[in-house]
């Protein structure tokens, strides 16, 4: 029960911070959507890093290391240190500059102007929403499974609420509901600015708690040396023969997946909150280090867990089971759980907010003859966010009803779709000859290939193409080829557009 009280206090603190950030809210739609371009370097780093690290980073990386060994770090963490920063520098700063100069608050506004087409936005909007859905799902599912793992009965010890559920755990539907309501509350309070404040607080919390969990678990296992000795040897190398390992071609082609940050709509919105281009400097440099601080402990905990838990353990609960099994102090368990929830909610808020922003600006306000007040615009964004949260919650309930949940692979499907769309943004920003036809060809070919591969994976499982190539790499080349061929076969953009974006 003490653990649950600690988590409740944390959620209360978060809501208190949201109320504080509301006092800074200027009441305009621009402040709600992009915080009036006022976020400085540290908060930009914390909010961008917090947004990219979700259940995938803490719960997913531990579970993946438990099933696939040390290769987990190289697959996503070290490659992200190189690729994410490149995207921030080459795509993020340029989009910030364009957004600031022309007043865009969503990606679609930019693409519509760059490709001189209103209809293109109507194609892109549902695809971006669809790709965000798995990303949102892993947040709600990850939080629900984590709390369930900690609060359920273990051996002779009853669960926290033995009269409520059969295993005494807080039911996943309840955790999912609470998480959604808390995130909704602070987004409603102050939009983008509240999300930036909450993300900064939550990112600090989950980084500190991750390191704390690492120290306490290693201490309980007799120190880091003893902990690794108890782990399975199959998980300490990356070769496949006789080990869990990662095929070399899979490892190589996984480098395409971190490209996804170049097309995440919620990151676009975070970039636009920056006060100046210089605010990006700290984010670009510190991002790889922050990733290492979070991922190295999580991967090691996952490897240590191979010596503590049965091989068939659900990857989604490896972290929570390990923490609750090895750490006896309920206050510490509560703090670590709060850290995990912080990582999850710091992504959910940005994603929910960006979907509301896109719906309002790209669908309702676009081409609207009616003049809306700022209050009405914010109300519309909030209404759509509530609908999306409800939808995600219902899908999460379905996902939670399954025997096992694969947080890592579900996230990778979302990332793969966004990564495959990066030829669109790279061409739009750097290739004058890129045209609307090329853009249509790129988006449609990526969408068709993504749906095909996703279905072949059983809608969210791990799936590799012949030669052990990850689908993201193949889809990226399909998208890039379609972009190039489609553009070259159509007339170039108008001089006015070229002057506007390349002048």
């Amino acid at each position, binding site marked *: 029960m003490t653990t649950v009280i600690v988590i409740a206090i944390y959620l209360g603190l978060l809501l208190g911070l949201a109320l504080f950030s509301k006092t800074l809210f200027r009441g305009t739609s621009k402040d709600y959507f992009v915080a009036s371009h006022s976020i400085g370097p540290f908060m930009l780093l914390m909010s961008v890093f917090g947004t990219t690290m979700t259940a995938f980073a803490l719960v997913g990386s531990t579970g993946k290391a438990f099933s696939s060994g040390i290769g987990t770090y190289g697959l996503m963490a070290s490659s992200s240190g190189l690729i994410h920063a490149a995207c921030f520098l080459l795509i993020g700063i340029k989009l910030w500059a364009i957004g600031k100069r022309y007043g865009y608050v969503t990606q679609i506004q930019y693409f519509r102007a760059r490709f001189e087409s209103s209809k293109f936005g109507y194609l892109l909007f549902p695809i971006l929403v669809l790709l965000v859905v798995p990303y949102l799902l892993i947040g709600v599912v990850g939080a629900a499974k984590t709390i369930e793992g900690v609060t359920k009965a273990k051996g002779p010890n009853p669960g926290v609420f033995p009269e409520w559920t059969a295993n005494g755990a807080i039911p996943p539907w309840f955790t999912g509901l609470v998480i959604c309501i808390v995130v909704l509350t602070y987004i409603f309070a102050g939009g983008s600015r509240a999300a930036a404040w909450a993300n900064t607080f939550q990112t600090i919390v989950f980084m500190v708690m991750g390191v704390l969990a690492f120290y306490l678990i290693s201490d309980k296992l007799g120190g880091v040396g003893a902990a690794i000795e108890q782990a399975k040897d199959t998980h300490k190398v990356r070769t496949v023969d006789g080990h869990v390992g990662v095929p070399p071609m899979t490892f190589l082609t996984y480098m395409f997946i971190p490209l996804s940050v170049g097309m995440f709509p919620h990151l676009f919105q975070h970039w636009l909150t920056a006060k100046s281009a210089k605010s990006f400097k700290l984010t*670009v440099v510190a991002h790889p280090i922050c990733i290492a601080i979070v991922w190295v402990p999580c991967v090691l905990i996952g490897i240590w867990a191979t010596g503590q838990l049965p091989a068939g353990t659900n990857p989604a609960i490896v972290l929570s089971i390990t923490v609750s099994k090895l750490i006896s102090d309920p206050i510490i368990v509560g703090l670590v759980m709060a850290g995990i929830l912080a990582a999850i909610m710091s992504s959910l808020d940005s994603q929910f907010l960006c979907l509301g922003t896109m719906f309002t600006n790209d669908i309702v306000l676009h081409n609207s003859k009616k003049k809306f007040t700022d209050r009405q615009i914010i109300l519309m964004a909030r209404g759509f966010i509530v609908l999306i949260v409800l939808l995600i919650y219902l899908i999460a309930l379905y996902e939670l009803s399954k025997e096992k949940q694969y947080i890592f692979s579900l996230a990778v499907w979302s990332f793969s779709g966004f990564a495959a769309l990066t030829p669109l943004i790279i061409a739009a920003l750097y290739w004058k000859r890129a045209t609307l036809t090329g853009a249509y060809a790129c988006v449609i070919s990526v969408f068709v290939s993504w749906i095909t591969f996703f279905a072949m994976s059983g809608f969210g499982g791990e799936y590799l193409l012949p030669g052990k190539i990850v689908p993201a790499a193949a889809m990226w080349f399909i998208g890039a080829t379609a972009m190039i061929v489609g553009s070259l076969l159509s007339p170039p953009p108008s001089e006015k557009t070229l002057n506007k974006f390349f002048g």
Partner: protein
Amino acid sequence: MNKPVILIIFLVLVVLHQDFWNWDNASLVFGFMPVGLFYHACYSLVAALFWGLVMKFAWPTELEEWAEGNSNDEEGAE
């Protein structure tokens, strides 16, 4: 540091990421860290150093000036 140099270093880092020489090495660094994991943790620090140098020597100053400039073009927010 000009753009071709940055691109070459970037590509070298992509190759170094594959570290095929560590794949079947099960030895531990400092007695607790599998060498394959230790290498990639160091790789993250090298990546940060690389981007720090890029920030210092190849920062796009002109882009910030362009962003702050007045535009006569129609605003795209609607």
